[in-house]
């Protein structure tokens, strides 16, 4: 057995091995996510199958790249227009108004090199994006936590400088946010500098030089500062970096807006001229060079600058680390002056009374909030920074006074801030517990009650933001309108509802045991949450009161449904391999109802083919058709996934009782319907409605059959079986009846909302009494038969 002599490791090979290890780790992480479906061992098969997420990621990446390219183009062209008065893009329109023609600006840029002001401003833009490429990765990892990575690598037989170079290179290669920030603008600048399709190549090369510099600054802060600063200051630093990247992004976006406020352009114009000699400026100069010789000269300078800076940076880091690689023994400072017995004496005073009113869970949550600076800044300050940046840089709301005039916009902003704060706080409830979730399993309280308290706490705290915004608006309001009260109501009911939605979605979105901070929140649920939030703003912006109502009802029921689904998933929170057994839930019912609603509209459109008001025949066919489709689909899905608790039509019920209750309920519903129709005859809208309700005698019988047989079958399954049944699981009969009837009513045309609501109540009552779907079906059939016959043979 011969012993091979160990070959000393060359620095290049060491760096290569380190990078290979990083890339292997990334690949394993991705493969674990993508292919978990094919692995027998582990993988949560709850909502949101992981294997399809990578498609979504690809789509989002493509979308983001496209958006960034667009924004970059707007920035460049807009700045060219606004920075110089001699630009060709200032045109006077037909009516004498002045506007900016961006296409002309583009042509102008292609023709000649950039003007000095534009060159300076673009240097500023690239520098700012470079800063973002540094700040975003810096803010994403916990600075104050020990650097186990470095600690472990230092035990290998490698020189320290090799380790540092390796770290710089791997950080440049993995800085995806930096790539997103730099590639589109550089490519666009190259394009307008006349490089044609080589612009992309030039941008990639420029990125290859700028990203290591960004990694250098990042590592100086991360590795080096960790040795110099105590832990609490590091956390402060991290909080600040988190805050600063936002205004920068807004600033850059504002440069691309045609209506940007004046001082944004002034800042751009005033950027010092010597900066064109810094690396970002050199990139610009190289792209703008008139001929190849000049370009080579610029590139050479750029390479030289980069090399010098990198070498100096590494030397500085070695100096920082001369006393050791990790900062051991740094303890978080605690103010020690307090005696232990303060708790007993703290039972008097307003603060003590206030905290006595809160439960131990809420007190602990607030305490953690006040001590965790990072969390505090991210949750409470960041939304303010974002909104203020939006307002200042976008120039849409140049002064607070405008808040007093545009009430709808104010309401939208108030709601938006609230929802955003909720996303950072209530959404992350499980992640905030983190690895300490086990502690909540040792106390005699259900996790559901814990989550409910958290939803309450955050819902209440978050109300402050809309209150402030609306307060400012109220201060500047000149006159009062009733509409303002309605908006107020919408915003303030929206916040608690969305607190509930955020906590429920957070149960699915959060993975508190994930080691990587980035992997802790599943992006799909964030997008879903933002989608639901934007749906609610329809209620704010719509001017039709019935639409506002529909949206509010649907969102409220969605909140309850999601809560129920989350509650089903709670026992399986810390269990990596189990998932709740599939059960019929309100969420299924709501999805079915929404699908029904949409399909009904589609079928009506198809039948009417563009003519304006749908006839009775078309409406009935749409109802029946949509109902049938949804029914078949739901039954199929349930059969495939062997779901439990599917509502039964005949099984398990007492026929006599069913008929009795059914008859009674039918009588009530029909009487109400007829009375309503009779009353409607005396109103002004009657002629219109009467016209819609006529139908030829040939189709009457057929329509009657559809309305009496097909529609009840399907609609009862969805609205009573799924929605009412699901709601009944979490609440007593009366609220469940009201809620399901409300949802049933809002998907019908507005003229019939009232009698349909009563019908909903009656059928729900019949279902409650007879426990099978036969009862409600009979009621619904009877109602439809009576109303339609009355309409046909009046």
């Amino acid at each position, binding site marked *: 057995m011969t012993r091979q002599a160990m070959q000393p490791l060359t620095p290049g090979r060491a760096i290569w091995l380190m990078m290979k290890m990083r890339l292997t780790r990334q690949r394993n992480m991705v493969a674990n996510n993508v292919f978990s479906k094919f*692995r*027998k*061992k*582990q993988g949560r098969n709850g909502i949101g199958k992981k294997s399809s997420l990578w498609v979504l990621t690809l789509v989002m990446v493509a979308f983001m790249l496209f958006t960034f390219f667009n924004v970059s183009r707007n920035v460049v062209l807009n700045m060219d227009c606004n920075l110089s008065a001699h630009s060709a893009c200032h045109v006077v329109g037909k009516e004498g108004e002045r506007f900016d023609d961006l296409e002309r600006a583009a042509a102008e840029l292609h023709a000649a090199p950039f003007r000095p002001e534009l060159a300076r401003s673009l240097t500023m833009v690239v520098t700012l994006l470079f800063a973002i490429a540094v700040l975003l990765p810096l803010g994403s990892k916990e600075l104050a936590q020990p650097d186990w990575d470095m600690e472990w690598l230092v035990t290998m037989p490698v020189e320290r400088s090799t380790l540092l170079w390796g770290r710089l290179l791997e950080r440049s290669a993995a800085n995806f946010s930096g790539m997103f920030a730099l590639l589109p603008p550089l490519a666009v600048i190259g394009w307008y500098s006349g490089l044609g399709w080589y612009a992309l190549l030039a941008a990639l090369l420029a990125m290859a030089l700028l990203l290591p510099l960004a990694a250098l600054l990042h590592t100086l802060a991360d590795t080096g500062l960790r040795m110099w600063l105590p832990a609490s200051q590091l956390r402060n630093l991290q909080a600040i970096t988190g805050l600063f990247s936002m205004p920068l992004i807004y600033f850059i976006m504002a440069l691309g807006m045609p209506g940007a406020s004046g001082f944004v352009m002034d800042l751009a114009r005033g950027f010092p001229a010597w900066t064109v000699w810094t690396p970002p400026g050199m990139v610009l100069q190289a792209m703008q060079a008139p001929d190849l010789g000049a370009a080579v000269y610029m590139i050479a300078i750029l390479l030289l600058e980069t090399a010098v800076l990198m070498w100096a940076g590494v030397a500085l880091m070695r100096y920082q680390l001369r006393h050791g690689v990790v900062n051991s023994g740094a*303890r*978080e400072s*605690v103010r*020690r002056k*307090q005696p*232990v017995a303060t*708790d*007993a004496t703290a*039972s008097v005073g307003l603060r003590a009374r206030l905290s*006595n009113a809160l439960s*131990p*869970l809420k007190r*602990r949550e607030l*305490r*953690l909030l006040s*001590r*965790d600076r990072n969390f505090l800044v991210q949750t409470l300050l960041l939304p303010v920074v974002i909104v203020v940046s939006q307002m200042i840089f976008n120039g849409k709301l140049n002064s607070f006074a405008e808040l007093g005039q545009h009430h709808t916009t104010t309401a939208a902003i108030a709601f938006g801030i609230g929802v955003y704060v909720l996303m950072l706080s209530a959404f992350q409830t499980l992640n905030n517990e*983190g*690895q*300490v979730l*086990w*502690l909540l*399993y*040792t*106390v*005699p*309280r*259900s996790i559901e009650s814990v989550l409910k308290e958290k939803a309450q706490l955050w819902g209440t705290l978050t109300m402050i933001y809309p209150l402030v915004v609306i307060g400012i608006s109220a201060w500047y309001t000149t006159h009062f309108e009733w509409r303002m009260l309605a908006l107020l109501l919408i915003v303030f009911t929206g916040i608690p509802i969305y607190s509930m939605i955020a906590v429920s979605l957070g149960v699915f979105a959060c993975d508190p045991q994930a080691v990587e901070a980035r992997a802790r929140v599943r992006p799909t649920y964030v997008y879903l949450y933002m989608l639901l939030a934007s749906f609610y703003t329809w209620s704010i912006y719509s001017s039709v009161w019935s639409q506002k109502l529909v949206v509010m009802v649907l969102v409220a029921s969605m909140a309850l449904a999601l809560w129920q689904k989350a509650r089903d998933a709670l*026992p*399986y929170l*810390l*269990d*990596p*391999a*189990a998932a709740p057994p599939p059960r019929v839930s309100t969420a299924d019912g709501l999805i079915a109802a929404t699908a029904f609603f949409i399909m009904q509209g589609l079928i009506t459109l198809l039948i009417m083919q563009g003519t304006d008001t749908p006839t009775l025949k078309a409406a009935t066919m749409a109802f029946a058709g949509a109902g049938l489709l949804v029914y078949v689909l739901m039954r199929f899905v349930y059969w495939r996934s062997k779901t439990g608790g599917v509502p039964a039509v005949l099984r398990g019920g007492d026929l006599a009782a069913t008929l009795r209750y059914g008859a009674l309920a039918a009588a009530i519903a029909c009487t109400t319907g007829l009375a309503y129709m009779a009353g409607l005859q005396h109103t002004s809208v009657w002629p219109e409605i009467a016209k819609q309700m006529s139908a030829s005698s040939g189709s009457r019988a057929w329509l009657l059959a559809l309305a009496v047989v097909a529609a009840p079958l399907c609609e009862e399954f969805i609205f009573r079986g799924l929605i009412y049944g699901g709601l009944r699981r979490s609440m007593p009969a009366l609220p469940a009846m009201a809620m399901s009837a409300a949802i049933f009513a809002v998907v019908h045309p507005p003229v019939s909302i009232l009698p349909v609501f009563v019908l909903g109540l009656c059928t729900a009552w019949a279902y409650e009494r007879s426990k099978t779907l036969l009862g409600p079906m009979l009621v619904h059939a009877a109602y439809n038969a009576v109303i339609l016959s009355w309409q046909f043979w009046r």
Partner: protein
Amino acid sequence: MIEFQGLSKVYGGFDAVKPLSLTVKRGEVFGFLGPNGAGKTTTIRMMMGILVPSAGQVRIDGLDCHTEPAEVKRRVGYLPDTPIFYDYLRGREILQFVAEMHGYSRAEAAERGARLLAEFGLQEAAEDYAVNYSLGMKKRLGLACALIHDPVVLILDEPINGLDPRASRDVQERLLAAAARGVTIFVSTHLLDMAEKLCDRVGIIHHGQLVATGTLDEIRAKASASGSLEDVFLKITDEAAAERTE
């Protein structure tokens, strides 16, 4: 007091815990022994409702741990193998939080907390943030959290793993005192000398299967081995391995 009725946990094709049936009487100290990765922590997590059993059930004082978790927690104190606490809370605050969540009033929780901190020698450390605690301190704090509501059952996962000799002796004495008071203790460990000194009965689990249970003498007789628990243990787990490979 603690009844396992066919409790099992299956991860895909892998049996983490094969159907386990066992009874622990009131006031008994039961040691759950096994090599690393045998399924001890999985079993304990199923008892605490952190994991959901694939089949079977476990009852504590007649209550099912999966369907009635809140009631069970009133009677049970739990110490995990690696206790992790909120980094920016002081030890005293954490203890107070746990006591209040168990239903004590604020004043009473503070008083109980102070008493336990004194007992465990943690008064100095209690004013420090938990992020600064060593492993021994964390285990002591965890044990204090488990004992603060005077539970009738203690479930401990590797309580002295990683402690220095003095701390280890301390914990064992505390457990013996609790047992003398009538507390039922279910302790999992792979440290056999502690099990020998502490436990009335032991159960040996290997690759998810309970291969032997009873008092030390009974196990010795069944394995027809003599000597310390260590020798018996090694022989039994060896046999079990041999059986599996046949």
